[in-house]
């Protein structure tokens, strides 16, 4: 069908901004305060978050630079131009696998947390399966759908965080934050690695390049998009610590959810805000997972150009389900998350940096 001037299958600057922000925000926000405090033992962890965030913004800048150097080309084509087809094929497939693992992790996470905060009897398998089915439905259409979904959900998610923080402000105890600057700076730098994990997600742009409306503006949009999670992480970290203190936070599985538990809805209209919080939080978790799924489909499609999208999505379903069911407990799930994060640093940060450097050195440029 003919589209009506507004590029039907293209995405604009705001969509990129919202999608990068939404992709990055996910589980990180629920667990970050604990992970950081476990290492730093004090409120100084905010420095680690800042370092991690700034580092991630730097790498997202590199990714954006890379894709604006090769307008309308995806990772496979960029790689093909810079380092040759075989290596590009390898990188692309690695990317696809990484993204699929991320989908599995995200789905499993949803299932685990919903058992904690929504229902205790429904089995994890069923909860994950339902989520997976909705994911398949989500990715079976054009990618631009997911971008639109992101623009819809991002304001809701940000608003939810602010409601959460505002409603807790009365419990905030400044003494919990003391003392400042007691952690060794080396410790802080090492911990920043943990926070970098929570900032992964911007690398999706490597595959959405072909549908971007204005590739030149991608740099600005993705940097701004990264700022949103950075600000939210810092706010949530500080308020959580101010509420619970370092020790309690370090021993709570999902400190942000516990934050929601403290909320008393004015007027007693309903109780257990954490259930509402998590239900709405599913919006952003879904978006992250769906974007990742979509990107892995795009990666596979880039390599095997004959693959049919819907068939691919449905075909990958059972494999995904098996991966989802692999972690047996929370510890294994966290180990899984750690692997994924290392893979993400590999394909999302190192590879684009190398590609950009090589492209500059060899003077390779995409056709405008």
């Amino acid at each position, binding site marked *: 069908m*003919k589209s*009506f001037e507004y590029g039907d299958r293209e995405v604009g600057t705001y969509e990129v901004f919202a999608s990068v922000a939404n992709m990055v925000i996910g589980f990180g926000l629920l667990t970050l305060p604990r992970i950081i405090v476990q290492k730093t033992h004090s409120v100084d962890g905010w420095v680690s978050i800042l370092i991690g965030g700034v580092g991630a913004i730097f790498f997202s800048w590199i990714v954006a630079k890379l894709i604006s150097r090769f307008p309308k080309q995806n990772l496979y084509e960029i790689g093909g131009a810079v380092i040759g087809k075989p290596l590009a094929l390898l990188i692309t497939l690695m990317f696809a696998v990484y993204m699929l693992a991320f989908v599995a992790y995200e789905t499993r996470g949803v299932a685990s947390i919903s058992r904690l905060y929504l229902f205790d009897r429904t089995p994890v398998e069923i909860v994950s399966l*339902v989520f997976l089915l909705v994911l398949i439905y989500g990715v079976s259409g054009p990618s631009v759908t997911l971008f639109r979904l992101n623009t819809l959900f991002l304001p809701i998610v940000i608003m939810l965080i602010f409601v959460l923080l505002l409603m807790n402000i009365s419990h905030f105890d400044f003494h919990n934050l003391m003392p400042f600057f007691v952690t060794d700076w080396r410790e802080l730098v090492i911990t920043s690695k943990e926070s970098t994990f929570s900032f992964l997600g911007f690398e999706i742009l490597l595959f959405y390049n072909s549908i971007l409306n204005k590739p030149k503006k991608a740099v600005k949009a993705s940097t701004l998009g990264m700022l949103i999670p950075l600000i939210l992480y810092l706010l949530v970290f500080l308020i959580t610590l101010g509420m619970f203190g370092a020790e309690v936070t370090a021993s709570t599985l999902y400190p942000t959810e516990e934050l929601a538990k403290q909320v008393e809805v004015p007027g007693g209209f309903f109780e257990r805000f954490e259930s509402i919080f998590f239900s709405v939080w*599913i919006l952003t978790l879904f978006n992250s997972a769906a974007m990742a799924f979509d990107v892995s489909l795009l990666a596979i499609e880039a390599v095997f150009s004959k693959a049919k999208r819907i068939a691919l999505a449905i075909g990958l379903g059972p494999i995904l389900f098996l991966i989802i069911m692999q972690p047996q407990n929370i510890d294994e799930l966290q180990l899984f998350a750690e692997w994924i994060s290392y893979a993400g640093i590999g394909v999302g940060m190192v590879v684009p940096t190398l590609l950009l450097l090589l492209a500059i050195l060899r003077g390779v440029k995409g056709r405008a």
Partner: protein
Amino acid sequence: MPRIMFRNTHNKRSPLRKSGGSQGSASDGNFTGRNVHESVAQIVRVLDAPDDLVTRFISGAEGAPVCAIVCIAGLADLKMINDHIVTSIQQAYSAFERSESITGQELYQRLDKQFLSVQKYKLTQSLDDILVGVLSGDTALFIDGVDQVLLIGSKQWTGRGVEEPETESLVRGPREGFNESIETNIILLRRAIRDPKLRIDTYRIGERGKKGLVIAYIDNIVHPELIQEVKRRVESIDIDDAPESGTIEQLIQDSFLSPFPLILHTERPDKATSAILQGKVVILLDGTPFALIMPTTIVSLVQSPEDYYERWLIGSLIRILRYTAVFISLTFPSLYIALVSFHQGMIPSKLAFSIAAAREGVPFPAVIEAFLMELTLELLREAGVRLPKPVGQTIGIVGGLVIGEAAVQAGIVSPIMVIVVAVTAMSSFAIPAYSAGIAFRILRFIIMLAASMFGLYGIILTLIMICIHLSRLNSFGIPYLTPLAPSYYRDWRDMFIRAPLPMLSKRPQFLQTKDESRMGSREGGT
């Protein structure tokens, strides 16, 4: 009454050829015979000489060319034919000298330039055109020796007057509504927009029905690609008959798999004109009071003309109320199911006690209870629409009693459920677009089903699926969720709230109109 001539969209299959009623020279659809008697005989033959076919030959002096009139009694205004057509032909005859021998061509020239006192006619040679014209109330005038036929507009039909629309009533606003006559509906549009750039493009729809269809828009506002697309789709319609604009809607909409209306319909001329002035396109169809507005976005389902007639604060608040109504109508029963059967902890303890007490005697789980009540309500609504008005009230009372009192007393449902159902029903009536209300009703049941299996989790996943579906939809190339996603911030002034009129000085951005400003500083213009 203006007489409007419609042009055929296309003629892939001609009913004449199919029916086999015509032979010889007529089979090619053209009319070449110069002999009046032959020509008329041909028409009579094709139509199989029905009783209401009026044929009349008029002849002047000896040697003067004979004229013939063909029309259908009842469809054509016989008085008008007598007063204007027949009289002017006679005048034309008498204008010639008695001895003069005149040709048909000369007579036609005279008629055309001097005597024929009708508003509009067209010349044609095609048999199809003549038949369609005669069958829709025009009069065909044959002149001996002229190979063209004059098709004179003489339609007459006593339809309903301009009445108050039944479906979209307002407290404040014009009381006129469209009616079944397309001529009247065009007049209603023209009376509201006196812009010389208002375009009324006419088509004929239906191979057998041959109904008039009008595409109305303002030429220097609407985006050229939009109007092209609308025309392309309308021209591609190939159907026997379009009984209602709903048929057109289903044939030209972007997707037929969606419960959401991708084209809005309205009975209100003011709604149609304001859509035209925004840069949208309106389609009118003969025989129905419902006009189609396109493109449609989800936001426009919740807007009512009244929002603009009242002051902005009132308009905005009422609009927000309607958004709340949409939300309640979609999710209220499912929230009840989820809370009662999964997340009892979320209900404040005092309320939880009273719900538990009320549900004590109820033998069914909350899901069955909710489905039972919602189903009853849907039945009640459907019955209320079907029944004649006086009986409808009775049904209302009986149904209300069943739903309200008796069901509770019999211990089938709990009083809380009655409240839930009632609030949901009220909310769904508060949505201005009826077709959108139906979509939300369908989805409500799906969400209820999901809630009964997965509680809040099910509700949120279904809502996500609805959002995915919505963000895939397009209406004439415009994403259905515009101006939300993709975002057009300027249009947000007229989305959740209705900003004060001075702030709405520009037409909606997403329609990409040629002339943006509708207030204050104008560039160019006509």
